[in-house]
């Protein structure tokens, strides 16, 4: 259960017994065009439990991606707090945030955003380069991630040699390879055909159900949102169920 009122303190799933992983309190964010203030998020309060699959829907410009970016520590809020797994994201420095993201966040982009000069294997390995893992350990992790997304045989392919669906699966493998606390997906099926979109949703569902990954997915697609445990609607910066 979510509310735009700071005083409300309920979970997105309505469960009071589950462990809270993400706690957003009275979050406010505006953009400025010249001197004109354009509110994007207006006092959002939300709790997301561990192992939950949450979908956020809303029209373009409603603030979905901004909220996702703030949770990921990519954007800052003017007011309120975001606490992920006990750590106050909104109070961290840019440097702390980068380290924290590497450890806790797996990000899935709408347009895959793979590095074109690297193979699928190398793209997936990228987040692991920031860890202390040895080359052999990195290889084990990458092969596991490739196996999870079903692309073991495409490890040495470059992004241009892969279909959109395959590229997105590589993107998901990159997001999960470091075993993050939370997966943030920004319209992961937005650039895919229906069949590929279905495969990606199957994969996300499997990650949630089989690997107990907490997923927050921004989507325009009502069918995609059906896969989630809970669906939140954001409109003009106000969150509602």
């Amino acid at each position: 259960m979510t509310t735009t009122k700071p005083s409300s303190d309920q979970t997105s799933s309505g469960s009071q017994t589950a462990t809270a992983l993400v706690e957003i309190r009275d979050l406010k964010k505006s953009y400025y065009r010249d001197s004109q203030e354009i509110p994007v998020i207006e006092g959002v309060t939300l709790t997301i439990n561990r192992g939950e699959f949450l979908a956020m829907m809303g029209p373009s410009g409603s603030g979905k991606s901004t909220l996702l970016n703030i949770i990921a520590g990519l954007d800052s809020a003017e007011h309120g707090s975001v606490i992920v797994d006990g750590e106050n994201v909104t109070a961290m420095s840019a440097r702390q945030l980068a380290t924290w993201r590497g450890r806790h966040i797996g990000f899935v982009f709408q347009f895959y955003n793979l590095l074109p000069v690297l193979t699928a294997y190398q793209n997936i390995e990228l987040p692991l380069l920031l860890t202390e893992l040895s080359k052999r350990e990195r290889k084990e992790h990458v092969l596991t991630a490739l196996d999870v997304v079903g692309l073991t045989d495409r490890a040495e392919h470059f992004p241009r040699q892969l279909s959109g669906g395959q590229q997105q699966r590589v993107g998901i493998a990159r997001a999960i390879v470091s075993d993050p606390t939370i997966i943030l997906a920004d319209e992961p099926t937005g650039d895919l055909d229906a069949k590929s979109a279905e495969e990606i949703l199957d994969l996300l569902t499997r990650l949630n159900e089989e690997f107990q990954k907490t997923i927050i997915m921004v989507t325009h697609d009502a069918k995609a949102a059906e896969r989630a445990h809970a669906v939140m609607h954001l409109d003009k910066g106000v969150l509602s169920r």
Partner: protein
Amino acid sequence: MKFARLVWANIFRNKRRTFLTAASVAVAMFLFASLRSIITTLEASAELGSEARLVTRNAIGITFPLPEAYTSRLKSTSGIRNVSWANWFGGVYQDPQDFFAQFAVHGESYFAMYPEIRIPDDQLDLFLRERTAAIVGTGLMERFGWSLDQTVTLQGTIFPGDWEFTIRGVYTPDNPSFSDQTMYFRYDYLFERTNRQVTPGWFILQLEDPTAAANISTTIDALFENSTAPTATETERAFQAGFVTMWGNVAGLVRAIGTAVFFAILLVAANTMMMAARERINEVAVMKTLGFQNRTLATLVLSEATIITGVGGLIGLLLAKGFINPANPVNVMLPGFILTTGTFVAGVGISIALGLVSGAVPAWQSARLSVVQALRRVA
């Protein structure tokens, strides 16, 4: 090391651009090495002459001779161990473009005074016994394909006519800055052929004590002060340095050209790096999302720029080394024109600095990049 593959992949992302950037730096470093070698050679030339030898010339100028009668007065001057003299001949062999220096020297005294000119004893003996004999540098022998005992004919310019010389000796300089492109022949040959009209061009005085050079110079010049041919005496090193200054401010000109080349190439490299960085704004944003620190991203950009300019610079320097050292295309004018280790190291340093400077702006831009704005631009 674990980021090496990423740097490598980015370097070869646009092979043509990387090649052209490295090539431009290679050309710049080739020019730098060549120009810098001219400066070091000029500086070495100025240092070439001995402090233990004085040169006495006509105070009016080097082209005005001195009376031969000065020889005995110089020999009797206190502190002078030996006296010799020489003349500039200025002959032409086959083609005026094939220039080389020829000096008429007083053989017995001259070569005794110059241990840096190494001649086999038997060849020197032959030279001293034959009036038309000549001693030629190894480089000159090689350049014209001459051989010992060969007769060569020079056309005199200052002293008209065809002049025949028989090569009786070949000298090897013991210092790379000392030219191996010179021909020495006997002063008495010049003297006789000019109907005893020629007189010494300058005197070379060997000192007993080099520290007395200043006093002896003053004494000698005072000795001839009121004569018809007043003298100017200075150490051979100062005399040599005077020759170098006749080139004008070549060193300054070369430095100015080198600086202009450096900044031109810097702009090219910086522009290339910024273009490369601009193409990758989205990728930098993605890497930041994955947790890459600004410092790491800046290091990657700087590494890439430094490798491209470093490799390009190294290629240019190696080409310059290969071109200058064995061939020495300007040996006649600049004996000992070589690319020194100092120049090579400076070139490598400049190449790396070029990479760091040209990569600084894109590295700074990467660090400042807003992930949200960069990703939104792509979306």
